[in-house]
């Protein structure tokens, strides 16, 4: 463990170290407002002269915009103005979402509203601003827009074929990006293998379904030239930069405020054209404009994700050792790469992550990222991980079956040894320290495998088919600038925290990472309380305001605890030192002989209370005249943190799913689920467990229910929550979460990310469990979601 004092590290009990908060399940201080309905989501904000936007959206997957007649819309009572793409292009520059380090990547310029063509059904084409949202919608209904429908390129499999509709002719073709990683000699390994298993997997296109839809209020003040944006976002500073750059403003003139966010999961870290349009319209009109996406708009224009077809081969020797993974990934990303993270990262992650938990020598993986006329895809919780894990773990189970080896045994044989670190994976990923075997051990303590296997055998005799499936995984967290910054994206990998002591001895921590419900503010309060030495109730955390918080990247890639937490810890430690310096002067003691415990300066050796922080605050702020003239007394400290040694802090874990397949109806009933994960130092075990559980259920959604279904014309058919099925309470299993802790040495805190582990591994565990259940019947499913229809087809029940 890193050198950070916890009761455990000192061999003490919690009572001996009262303000030790790291590793402790403290309830979230900001939860009470949530349960009392007193939170402030963006739609809860109202402003003087506020007007509301609604959009006419393309009814076609691909169409030329022939004409836009706004007269009738402008005549609708309450309608204030109508904006077209050309209107907004006057105040807003287009953006192109490419990353320089993804060699050869290309995409087309995107405007807030398109100028000539609509390229997916659901793309905003014309905006109407009115006194109410209802009036704005009436205005949209009254618009007369003539479209000339064009042939659409819907199927990703034919996007590069001769005769494909080239969506942006200036790009030459529909290829956005392709990359092959190759290590060793895959062909030779396969030729010499004892067995080679192969399969083609599909991960269904799905989306995040934040319960709070995308929400924004842009408020441009002509008098002082400032733009204030109330935004439901994960990355306020990134959006500040985007608004400033595209609207040709200084960053300091743009303020992004993000209070409570009703779910994000990656959906709210992207630049959406309709939201940019809102900022443009506010700038033009000089008054606040609100846009709250409705559920139709959410399904049609929130980013989608995971639309992949993956062919995989795994070569093994006679003992079941892995010789080579050979993977070919294809993904369709819609008509534009999404700014600024791009839509090539998901496929790139598949290349980075396949085979990740295992030791083997030969690797080849290609991703091919193509355009199509569907909603754009981009980063959604656990970007690429569930895809890579599905392919890897699916192939592992196929190999186990081919060799007649138990699924646990084949994993045990091939997982990277816990003493092998640091090491680099065949895909080129640098691992600082992982714990696959310890995690497997822990999982086997939790999962009653023998009992389950006995029950499985017994049930099969009665025609009841139950299955147990496993999935090991790795997860990429705490990204360095190697993820986006080196590619030219203005996405901050560093983050900062300012900690201030107020006169009454309470602390305020201002952080660049944001609260999306995962408990960021709670863990920051714990870290600061721990670092300074005050009760956690004395720490107020402020996030989500670019005008007051240190510059940072916000919330993505599980960086809140690892990056934002370390910045908070370092600034807390710096503040503590400063406080003790002042205290030493006041008490005529060496600062080093003093400590702060539960909000009081104490003598370190005896524990005797010397002075409450409130008294120190009173003197510093109101009677500074009594202190030595040259004494530094700034009771505020800021520290920023960035990882330097490793591009990413990898975490790892393993999941198990136990379920029953109704082979008559094809329905899957989840019985129980387990996950052991290693996110480094756990700051708040309860919050980590709940992140894992919530993540597992999002993985279950992709595995069993969620699917953005398009017809062959590119029309989205799943446009309501009645058609797009999200996991609900009645069908979800109880989930057991265990931990192994391997802190990263990059930081004092040692925390890595925990928010995506559940989603990364759950689909693969469920797939393997279903296939375990179906194995006596000779059936197998490899295409998510695993619907009754697909299971009955696999069984041969229906053709």
């Amino acid at each position, binding site marked *: 463990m890193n050198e950070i004092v916890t009761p455990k590290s000192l061999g003490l009990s919690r009572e001996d170290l009262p303000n030790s908060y790291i590793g402790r399940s403290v309830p979230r201080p900001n939860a009470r407002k949530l349960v009392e309905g007193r939170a402030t989501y963006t739609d809860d904000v109202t402003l003087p002269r506020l007007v509301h936007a609604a959009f006419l959206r393309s009814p076609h997957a691909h169409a030329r915009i022939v004409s836009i007649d706004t007269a009738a819309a402008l005549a609708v009572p309450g309608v204030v103005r109508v904006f077209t793409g050309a209107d907004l292009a006057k105040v807003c520059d287009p953006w192109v979402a490419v990353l320089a380090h993804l060699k050869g990547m290309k995409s087309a310029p995107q405007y807030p509203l398109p100028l000539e063509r609509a390229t997916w059904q659901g793309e905003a084409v014309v905006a109407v601003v009115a006194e*109410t*949202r*209802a009036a704005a*919608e*009436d205005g949209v*209904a009254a618009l007369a827009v003539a479209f000339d429908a064009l042939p659409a390129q819907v199927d990703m499999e034919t996007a590069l074929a001769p005769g494909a509709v080239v969506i942006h002719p200036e790009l030459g073709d529909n290829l956005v990006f392709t990359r092959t990683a190759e290590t060793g000699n895959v062909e030779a390994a396969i030729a010499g293998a004892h067995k080679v298993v192969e399969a083609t997997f599909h991960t269904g296109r799905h989306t995040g379904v934040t319960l709070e839809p995308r929400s924004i209020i842009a408020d441009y003040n002509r008098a002082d030239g400032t733009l204030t944006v109330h935004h439901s976002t994960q990355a306020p500073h990134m959006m500040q930069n985007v608004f400033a750059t595209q609207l040709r403003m200084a960053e300091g003139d743009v303020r992004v405020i993000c209070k409570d966010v009703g779910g994000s999961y990656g959906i709210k870290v992207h630049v959406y054209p309709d939201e940019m349009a809102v900022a443009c319209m506010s700038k033009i009109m000089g008054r606040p404009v609100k846009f709250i996406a*409705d559920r*139709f708009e959410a399904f049609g224009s929130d980013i989608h994700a995971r639309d992949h077809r993956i062919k995989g081969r795994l070569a093994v020797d006679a003992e079941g050792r892995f010789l080579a993974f050979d993977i070919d990934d294809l993904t369709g990303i819609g008509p534009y790469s999404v700014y600024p993270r791009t839509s090539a990262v998901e496929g790139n992650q598949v290349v980075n992550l396949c085979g990740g938990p295992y030791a083997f020598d030969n690797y080849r993986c290609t991703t091919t990222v193509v355009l199509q006329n569907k909603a754009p895809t981009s980063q959604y919780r656990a970007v690429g991980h569930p895809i890579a894990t599905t392919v890897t773990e699916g192939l592992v189970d196929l190999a186990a079956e081919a060799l007649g080896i138990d699924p646990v045994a084949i994993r045990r044989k091939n997982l990277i040894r816990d003493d092998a670190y640091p090491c680099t994976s065949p895909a080129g990923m640098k691992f600082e320290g992982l714990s696959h075997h310890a995690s497997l051990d822990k999982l086997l303590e939790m999962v009653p495998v023998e009992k389950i296997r006995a029950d499985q055998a017994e049930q099969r005799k009665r025609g009841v088919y139950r299955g147990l499936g496993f999935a090991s995984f790795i997860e990429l967290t705490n990204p360095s600038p190697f993820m986006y910054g080196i590619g030219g994206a203005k996405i901050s990998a560093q983050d900062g925290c300012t900690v201030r002591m107020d006169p009454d001895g309470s602390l305020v921590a201002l952080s660049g990472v944001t609260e999306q419900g995962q408990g960021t503010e709670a863990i920051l309060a714990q870290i600061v309380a721990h670092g300074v030495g005050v009760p956690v109730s004395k720490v107020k955390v402020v996030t989500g305001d670019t005008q007051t918080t240190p510059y940072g990247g916000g919330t993505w890639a599980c960086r809140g605890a690892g990056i934002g937490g370390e910045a908070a810890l370092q600034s807390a430690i710096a503040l503590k030192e400063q406080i003790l310096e002042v205290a030493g002067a006041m008490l005529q003691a060496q600062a080093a002989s003093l400590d702060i415990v539960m909000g009081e300066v104490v003598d370190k050796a005896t524990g005797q209370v010397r002075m409450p922080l409130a008294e120190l605050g009173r003197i510093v702020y109101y009677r500074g005249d009594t202190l030595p003239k040259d004494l530094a007394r700034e009771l505020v400290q800021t520290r920023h943190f960035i990882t330097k040694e490793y591009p990413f802090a990898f975490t790892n874990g393993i999941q198990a799913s136990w379920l029953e397949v109704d082979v*008559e*109806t094809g*329905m899957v009933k989840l019985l129980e689920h387990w996950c052991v994960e290693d996110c480094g130092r756990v700051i708040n075990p309860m919050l980590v467990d709940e992140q894992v559980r919530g993540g597992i259920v999002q993985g279950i959604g992709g595995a069993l*229910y969620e699917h953005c*279904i398009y017809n062959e014309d590119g029309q989205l*058919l*799943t446009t309501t929550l*009645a*058609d797009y*099925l999200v996991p*609900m309470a*009645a*069908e979800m299993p109880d989930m057991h979460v265990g931990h192994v802790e391997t802190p990263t040495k990059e930081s004092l805190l040692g925390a890595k990310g925990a928010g995506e582990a559940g989603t990364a591994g759950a689909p693969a565990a469920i797939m393997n469990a279903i296939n375990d259940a179906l194995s006596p019947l000779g059936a197998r499913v490899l295409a998510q979601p695993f*619907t*009754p*229809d697909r299971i*009955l087809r696999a069984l041969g*029940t*229906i*053709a």
Partner: protein
Amino acid sequence: MKWPAMGYARVESLDELWQVLDAAGPEAQILAGGQSLLATLSFRLSEPSGLIDITRIAALRGVSVAGATLRIGSLTRHAELGRDPLVAAHAPILAEAAPLIAHPAIRNRGTIGGSLALADPAAELPACVVALDATIVVASRGGERRVPAADFFQGLFTTDLQPGEIITAVEVPVATPASRQTIVEVTRRSGDYAMAGLAAVLAMRADGTVDAARLVFFGVGSGAEIATGASAALIGAPLTRATIAAAQGALADDLDPPGDLHGGPELKRHLARVITARALDTFLASAEQAA
């Protein structure tokens, strides 16, 4: 989307309703529980000129038994249907169906009359009342008429209701000792519309002989679909696995399901066969059930 602009009027009696209906014209719609109607307004697919709220007409409330008939007022909410002792005693399939309809908050508002008037092809209650051979009581300014449930439903979201008419009650023949009633459905998630559902009402003698059978499917066609062949296959002989298999076989001619987002017609046909067995198995003599 927000609701379209429309008028609203609340009426307290049937007489007042007739007056308001006359004044409102044909584009106005009746608002009962509103659990489907108001949702569709958010699609802006229907834009009624106005909604006439009938929820405070006392005459449309209440559950009662007179002789061999159970009368269920059209404003009876799904939640009330599920806990009413008269319904449980005399039309147990309706009590069994109620918890399958959506979720508690919806059941607290949705009414049986509204569900029948909408005639959603995947809804439980239309199939149940057809299986029960119930009578739909319909009223208009001109008076009352009674329509057998099987004749009331005329296809996708289509009923025998004429302009100016509303459903006032459903009359159900009370269950007898010979009655066997059950409802079985396959849903992806609790409360979802069924991928396939079956309301089965049989009359069986003590020796197991089936004297009458109505197997009515939902979610597999344009409405409540009476499986005439399958029903006939059960009648006149004791219920056995063999007669159930015969009924399953007859479904091939009885049903012509369309595909939907869950899958194609073949999936629906298959599920219909599965739930036929699952529903009828519960009526088998216990000796055969165990076998």
